């Protein structure tokens, strides 16, 4: 192991190098580009023995990954925002063919208006494509999660592709001290890829992606669905093994201060560092506040979330993405997790940090204020709240809500 001061992009590339991926196919887009640049360098220097395919688009990047995974190669790519949106069609194909491809996403907002800054909209819009989705809080977690992802999805109980999402700029371009494990140690956790799924092979001919008629399509979908649900237990096993070997433990969710909390803030990504600080400060002032960080967004940790927040009075879901006309994207999923509980907390939805806006302690304090006012109410006065929105600017634009 060596401790290095590296960016999120570099940590991700290190992970792909340590995973000894066979094929990388990717296309540049800010803020993901450096991941591919690092990998190209490793390949050029012979530190990674992989084929790099400098494709002409993200649609082709994902397609090339599909082709490579179909012949049994361990395959990696990375993208962001517009690029990920362009891949959309191919994401379904990768999941439907049950190919264990790992893709890093440097989360970024989508045009219009143009933004290169952090927003979870890009990957959340791919929610239903059949990919596992992990969101990380720091550069170390980015590296570790790539390794955990390969280990989990190559397991024959899962066989689905996975996205590891790190916040654009906040993580992709910020350097932190990261423990980079030794290759030998990683090999023990993640042995060389030997596909436990049918591959395109001239010695064993098969036909891929045939037409499924109404008498089978539903069953294919069901099978994919239960594999995703099963991924929870496989993930837990991988994470436990990872902790044993590397001393860093992860879970589908992470909680802090939830045991006695009256108020719980729930969210994902790099802002959870700030949320942790805010919660600590509030607790020092005697407020009973807790935190739930979603690490695995797909499979969604329904039971874990329910168990963590069941006894609290109010939970505030922080959404760094917007389902226009509805509100946050994680919020309805949290409500689903709570609906069947006999006693459940009141839930508020906070839209924060869109298009790279900092999620600051004052914004979080405002959210907590709203939550406190809701204690004891039978239903929230306002359900979707924008605690970081610039009221003066909205007024100047003549926008009323």
């Amino acid at each position: 192991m060596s401790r290095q001061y590296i960016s999120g992009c570099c940590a991700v590339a290190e992970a792909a190098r340590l995973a000894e991926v066979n094929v990388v196919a990717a296309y540049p887009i800010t803020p993901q580009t450096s991941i591919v640049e690092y990998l190209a360098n490793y390949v050029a220097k012979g530190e990674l023995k992989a084929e790099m395919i400098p494709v002409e688009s993200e649609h082709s990047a994902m397609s090339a990954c599909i082709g490579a995974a179909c012949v049994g190669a361990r395959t990696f790519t990375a993208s962001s925002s517009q690029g990920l949106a362009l891949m959309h069609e191919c994401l379904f194909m990768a999941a439907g063919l049950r190919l264990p491809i790992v893709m890093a996403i440097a989360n970024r907002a989508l045009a219009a208006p143009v933004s290169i800054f952090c927003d979870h909209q890009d990957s959340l819009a791919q929610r239903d494509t059949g990919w596992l989705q992990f969101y990380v809080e720091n550069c170390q977690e980015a590296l570790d999660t790539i390794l955990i992802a390969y280990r989990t999805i190559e397991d024959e109980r899962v066989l689905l592709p996975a996205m590891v999402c790190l916040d654009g700029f906040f993580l992709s371009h910020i350097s932190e001290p990261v423990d980079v494990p030794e290759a030998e140690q990683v090999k023990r956790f993640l042995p060389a890829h030997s596909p436990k799924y049918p591959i395109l092979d001239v010695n064993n001919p098969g036909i891929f992606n045939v037409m499924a008629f109404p008498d089978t399509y539903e069953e294919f979908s069901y099978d994919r669905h239960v594999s995703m649900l099963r991924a929870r237990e496989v993930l837990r096993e991988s994470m436990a093994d990872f902790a044993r070997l590397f001393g860093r433990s992860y879970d589908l969710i992470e909680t802090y201060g939830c045991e006695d909390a009256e108020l719980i803030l729930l969210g994902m990504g790099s802002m959870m560092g700030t949320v942790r600080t805010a919660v600590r400060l509030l607790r020092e002032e005697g407020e009973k506040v807790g935190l739930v960080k979603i690490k695995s967004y797909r499979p969604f940790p329904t039971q874990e979330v329910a168990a963590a927040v069941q006894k609290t009075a109010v939970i505030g879901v922080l959404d760094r993405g917007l389902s226009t006309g509805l509100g946050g994207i994680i919020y309805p999923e949290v409500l689903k997790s709570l609906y069947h509980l006999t006693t459940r907390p009141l839930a508020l939805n906070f839209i924060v940090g869109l298009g790279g806006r900092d999620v600051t302690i004052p914004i979080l304090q405002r959210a907590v204020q709203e939550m406190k006012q809701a204690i004891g109410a039978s239903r929230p006065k306002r359900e979707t709240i924008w605690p970081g929105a610039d009221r003066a600017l909205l007024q100047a634009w003549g926008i009323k809500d």
Partner: protein
Amino acid sequence: MATTLKTLTDEEFVAPGRAGCNGCGAVIAARMATKVLGRNTLMANATGCMCVNYGYAGAPKFPFIHTLFENAAAIISGMDAGLRSLHKRDDVNLVVLAGDGGTTDIGLQALSGAVERGHRFLYICYDNEGYMNTGVQRSGATPYGAKTTTTPVGGDRLGEPRPLERRKDMVRLLAAHGIPYAATASIAHPLDYIRKVERAIAIDGSSYIHVLSPCSPGWGFAENMTIKIARLAVETHFFPIYEVEDGRWYRLTIKAERKKAVEEYLRLQGRFSHLFSERYRDEIARIQAEVDANWAYLKQLAALRAG
């Protein structure tokens, strides 16, 4: 040694029970090519009639993937890289089979990228001059004046309005990429076609074959006329048969100097029947002129080699 019809294998790689229309030119094109390609083939087939022909009933004897409509060339790029990285690339023929829609239109970018990067694969475009799988719509390969469901005839419209000389010419387009080998072929000239396939798969790089594949329901002719129509396309110079090496050196491989009038070719096909009404009489002369000009131009290109 080059294959002859005598040495060509009796084995079939396009399974009986396939779901194509009777007399489907594309199935004939696939049948001939696969007899040369053999079992050591991985085929990526873009969405279109041929994936239905393989996928619904019957199956090829080699591994096969039905890709999306536009990404067959990108998927084959991944297979090329994947096999290389696993040291399994030798002795495997990577082949794309795609329609003219999946090639000239929606799949053009992926094909251009794959060829430019120099992946080793053969791309066979079976050109039935339209989107047939979705019920005969026009494509970038539909000829001038042809009636399709999106270029109907009536009012001021005589069918496909884009002139013949501006139809996307895939072979010349890929020649401009410097592709090591590109050719047109006809199912009415099986030896020429088969030898081109043989030559193409021996190349350590990208190669492309554009094979005209008459389509009985789409073009409007009786299902026993497929080969006759394919032959007439060559004899009238409507579809010249040639090859290009290294993107530069053109060679007409079927000369057909004693050519027939284009009218003979058009007359047999329902999609051109309106051109024979009084109203459109001049159009046939216009098509003839464009076909002649194209032939003359190709001959000039072919002469460059000799010079």
